[in-house]
């Protein structure tokens, strides 16, 4: 790496992205999807929740670009709403997992010794816990409180981030600025939050980008089992699930949300892979 040290992580990310057309176009597609999902429903005269009994199961047409569902609701508006919900779940849960993972990993790496090995042994144990069943149980028990679903999913997907952050912290710990801060009498919590975490941002961005699609898939999985969002609201997973029920008569109800879901997942993984190749020094082992 011959990067001039003065560049911030954000500048590095931008510079590397321009050299990777696949990752860059994935980013552009994602931005486009997010913009359409956020702004699209504002320009539509249809509501995602109001049934329209004389327009049930209409095939795609000029009035309803993607057709209507079992209650006569416009499928396009429902998909845009589903997209909002899925992205919201993905980003919120990833945020939870990043916060837990970074704090856990940085603390373990900075503390070192017994505390480190105990904290990482705990992570090892959690790796073998079957989380999907536990999250299913949680979503059933918490009465499908949407916020708790985020927290539950986030709380189980921080393990990778914790491991990677710990590794990075171990090498950062040897650097002069940490020693200087310690000599100035900076206390441990301040050290971790003010001095270590900002230097971990590159790695954290990569793994947050890779966490978002797994979380979106996970939410879709729960919604498919009927354990996700509540009825009038939709997520891409619940739309796929509804579509699968009408597979034979109305295949268009399945294809549109399925394609969009796959596109979002694919874009996030291409973007994450591209960023990892660009920024993670250990990716080129």
């Amino acid at each position, binding site marked *: 790496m011959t990067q001039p040290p003065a560049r911030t992580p954000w500048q590095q990310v931008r510079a590397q992205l321009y050299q990777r057309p696949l990752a860059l176009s994935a980013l552009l597609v994602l931005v486009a999807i997010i913009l359409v999902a956020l702004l699209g429903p504002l320009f539509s005269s249809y509501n995602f929740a109001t049934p329209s009994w004389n327009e049930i199961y209409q095939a795609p047409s000029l009035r309803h670009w993607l057709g209507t569902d079992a209650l006569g609701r416009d499928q396009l508006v429902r998909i845009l709403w589903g997209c909002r919900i899925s992205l919201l779940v993905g980003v919120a849960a990833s945020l939870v997992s990043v916060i837990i993972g970074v704090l856990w990993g940085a603390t373990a790496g900075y503390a070192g010794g017994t505390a480190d090995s105990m904290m990482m042994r705990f992570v090892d144990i959690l790796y*073998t816990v079957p989380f999907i069943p536990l999250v*299913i149980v949680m979503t059933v028990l918490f009465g499908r409180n949407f916020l708790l679903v985020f927290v539950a999913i986030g709380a189980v997907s921080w393990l990778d981030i914790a491991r990677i952050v710990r590794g990075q912290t171990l090498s950062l710990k040897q650097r002069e600025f940490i020693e200087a801060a310690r000599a100035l009498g900076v206390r441990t919590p301040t050290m971790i939050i003010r001095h270590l975490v900002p230097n971990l941002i590159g790695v954290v961005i990569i793994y947050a980008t890779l966490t978002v699609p797994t979380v979106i898939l996970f939410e879709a999985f729960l919604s498919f089992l009927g354990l996700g969002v509540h009825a009038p609201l939709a997520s891409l997973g619940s739309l796929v699930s509804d579509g699968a029920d009408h597979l034979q008569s109305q295949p268009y109800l399945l294809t549109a949300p399925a394609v969009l879901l796959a596109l979002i997942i694919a874009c996030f993984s291409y973007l994450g892979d591209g960023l990892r190749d660009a920024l993670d020094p250990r990716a080129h082992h």
Partner: protein
Amino acid sequence: MLRFLIRRLLIAIPTMLLIATLAFGLLHGTPGGPFDSAKRIPPAIQHSIEAKYHLNDPLWQQYARYLSDLARGDLGPSYQYRDTSVNELIRQGLPVDALIGSLAMLFAILLGGFFGILAAVRRGGAWDHIPMFFAALGIAVPVFVIGPLLILVFAIELHWLPAGDWEPGSVRFMILPVISLGFPYAAYIARMARSEMIEVLGSPFIRTARAKGLPERTILLRHALRPVLTPLVSFLGPAFAGVLTGSIIIESVFGLPGIGRYFVTGALNRDYTLVVGITVLYGALIIGFNLLADLCYAWLDPRVRLHS
């Protein structure tokens, strides 16, 4: 080797305890119980049913009783399926999951391994790009989309295969579930096998083999295959865990009589013992497969030392 095994088994005990405690605590710690349903039963009867299953005892007593039963391998009675024990339900359902799961893994390894290696050997050509396109698709398209799409094409349009259901021993009912469950893993394996093979083909010992004038097939099968397979083995542990949970979806898409269905309905009906029992079983299987994968890895690659 033996020390490694013993250490891993010793770590497995607190892990299993943690899993059982988490599941038990989650279910019992939240309000509501298995027998306060919409079908109004007289309070006296509800009380006596709950007393029969010791649900009115202090929580720590129920927990202690559950753990001591668990230690003897008894997962307790199911509340939802009266007069049936969780062990019996698992005994009925698990063979279906095991069959579908192992066929799906086999399918994934054969398909993914073959096309991954082919893509590496024909790097840059059509045999590289087409399989890798499908691999990218397989990773991005979730199991619960692949399943219904396969049903649409092969059952509804072409009438070749049944859309769901299960007849013990009948291959026709297995094909679509196995393909939908295995395809994402085939995609992962293909990508891994391709990048491993490219790396191995560029290494000095392959150049030596070429310089000796060995035929290409011997180089691939005798020399390159083993270092390509080794890293794949370490992926198989987590993959088995994924197949296990993926089968929950597959069962609901195809209506298969496995344990995933019991799990979801059990969670909805507060069937405490059934849910905790299946969670513990999943945990044990995941630990077992990870251990197995590590052992295979060490056996294939003698440079790996088994420690901690």
